[in-house]
Structure formats: C-alpha cells, structure tokens
C-alpha cells in the first residue's frame, strides 16, 4: 500500500491545496494593502491611496475568514459526489451554524467596539 502520493485520497489533496494556496493569497493581499498604505503615509495627511490600502487589507482579512468556509463547501461537494449523504448533511449543518454566527453578529449582539 506504500505508493507515496498516489495513495493519498483526493479529498486530502484537494483540501491541502486549497488551504495552502488560500493562505498565500490572503497573506499577499494583506501585505500589498500595507505596502500601499505605508508608501503614502509619509506626508502625514491622509491620502485617498491610504484608504484604498486599508480596504485591500480588509479584503485580505475577509479572505482569511472565508477560507475555512470554502473548505467546508469543498468537503460538502466531495461528500455529495461520493453519495455519502450522512456526511453531506453533517457538513451542511456546520456551514449552517457558521452562517448563523454571522447573522447573530449582525442582529443580536450589541456593538461593543467604538
């Protein structure tokens, strides 16, 4: 059974690829945003480019938050393709709870930070 990479289940390989490249992309987006912000911050006044830079940083942060969600969507897809309906339902349930978390944040919890 020891044939190296080829024995690796496709799900493991897919997830490893998604998380590895996803981390790289999100990190690079944040880094680019900061470089843009820092370049224009020497003058002391707030440049429109600085605001653009911070928006890019925020995009990188959103990408990081979405990465585990994408991972769940990918797992759901693979379970469905394998006709493993029990695990498809479990993955869908986890996705639903994560979505409920976002809705909760928007409507129920009082805003704490200024």
């Amino acid at each position, binding site marked *: 059974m020891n044939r190296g990479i080829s024995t690796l289940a496709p799900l493991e390989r897919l997830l490893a690829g998604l998380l590895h490249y996803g981390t790289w992309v999100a990190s690079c987006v944040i880094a680019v945003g900061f470089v843009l912000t820092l370049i224009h*911050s020497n003058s002391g006044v707030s440049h429109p480019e600085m605001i653009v830079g911070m928006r890019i940083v925020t995009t990188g942060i959103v990408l990081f938050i979405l990465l585990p969600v994408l991972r769940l969507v990918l797992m759901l897809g693979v379970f469905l393709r394998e006709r493993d309906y029990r695990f498809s339902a479990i993955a869908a349930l986890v996705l639903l709870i994560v979505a409920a978390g976002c809705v909760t*944040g928007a409507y129920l919890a009082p805003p704490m*930070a200024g």
Partner: protein
Amino acid sequence: MDIGFTVWLFAISIGASALGGMLGMASGIFIVPILTVFGHVNIHVAIGASIVSVIACSCGGAAPFLRARLTNIRLAVVLETATTLGALCGVLLAGIIPVSALFLLFAAILLLSARQMLARRSDPIDASAPVRTGSWAEKLNLDSSYPDRALGRDVAYRVQRVPMGMALMYGAGLVSALLGIGSGVLKIPAMDTALRLPIKVSSATSNFMIGVTAAASAGAYFVRGDIVSTIAGPVALGSVVGAVLGARILMRVSNEKLRVLFVAILVVLAVQMLLQAFGINPFGGSA
C-alpha cells in the same frame, strides 16, 4: 494609522506565533494579553484580531498534516458541529459578559495551559479496544489509521466515546469565541481522555478544526465591527510569518528549556490579566 504601532504589532505577532509554533500551540493565547496589557487595545478589538490570526495559523499549518494523512477529516467534521455551536453561544455571551470577567477567564485559561505544559502527555493509542457495536464511531465509520514513520507502517486506531468528546468540544468552541484563542488547551483533554486518539492524529485534527471554529465567531465579530483592519491585518500577517519561522527553529532548540520558558511566560501573562481584571495595569493606560 500609526506606522510605529503597526510595525510593533507585526513584530510581536511574529514572536508570539514562532514561540507558539515551537511547542505546537496557537499564538492566540499570547496575542490577546500582549495587545491588552502592553498595547492598551480594547479587549474586544484584541479578541477580533486574535481570532483572525488563529484562522491564519490553522489554514497555513493544515496542508502538511493533510498530506501526511494524519488528519481524520470525517471525525473533524463531526466534532465541528459541536465546536461551531459552542462558538455561536460564545458570540452571544461575548456581548453580555463584563470585561473584567473576560480577563479573569483568560487568566484561568493561561494557568491551565501552564499546568498542561508541565504535565506529560502519553500516547493513549489502544487499537486492541473492543469494537462496541452501535457506537457512534462505528455508525459514522470514524475509525482510521495513520502512517507512522518510525515504525514504517500504518497504525490503526479506534475513536472512542464520541458523545463525551463532542460535549468537551462544545466547551472548547465556546471559550475560543469568547477569548479569541484556538483553545487547544481544552481540545487536548477531549482528544486524549475522551476520544483516545494518537497524539499525532489529535494535533493534526485539532489544528484542522480550529479554522472552522474560529471562522464561526470571526464572521460574527467582523459583521459587528470588532475586527479592526489596522490591528488585525499586521497581527494575521505576523502570525503566518511567525508560524513558518517557528517550525524551522523547532528542530534546533532543546524541548526542555523551551517548556520552562513557556510556563514562565504563561504565568507572567496570567498575573497581568488578573491585575487587569481588577483594573490595575502596571504598564500605564486603561484597558
């Protein structure tokens, strides 16, 4: 945006993450105390920044474990129903719990981590355990095997007491959302005592689950406006860089010295968080 503060955030995140990575811990447990005590950041903003860095470290570290076939994906998704539900409850509680109680809880978790670091983990693997027909592990087909390099063969293991493991995971998810940490400190007892997984499988599966658990609360905190880009950005980036460095240094430093250093840092931070709970900050400024 203050450039000096941004660079400071980036640097301390590299340090915290490298230190955590050397002993297989998430950096979140250091980030929140450092940001609140030394950076005078609001604790909710510190938790928001920390939770993003927890996701970053989990995603960044997952690939090697997956490629080595150490992660039990099926078990992870089953346990994630419990951790995300816990995180959801944590988000609800975070708005109600007074700030001083958050500091107290954080101090308690730090001390618990220090104690756990001193105690030795033994491998609870027990492949000879009888298969209990009708158990969750059997119904959901959770039992698996992992390749052991030292032995040069696949080692089979059984997953035990899934309901008890789920209950403990719910608690881990709750604390993770409340404090912005990966809460590995609470996952380890669940993995070792209840599920009785081999240590390598337990570390890999726990790391894999942390990302989704943290995403459940990070989504809520982002929508609520607790995730401030000027703080969360450098912290997330620094954590990824630190995790890469930590894994490299891991091979060269004696584990025993590192353990003592770690326990000392955890205890110092716990004392700081306790003082903070009573409104005292020896480093000036208000929490």
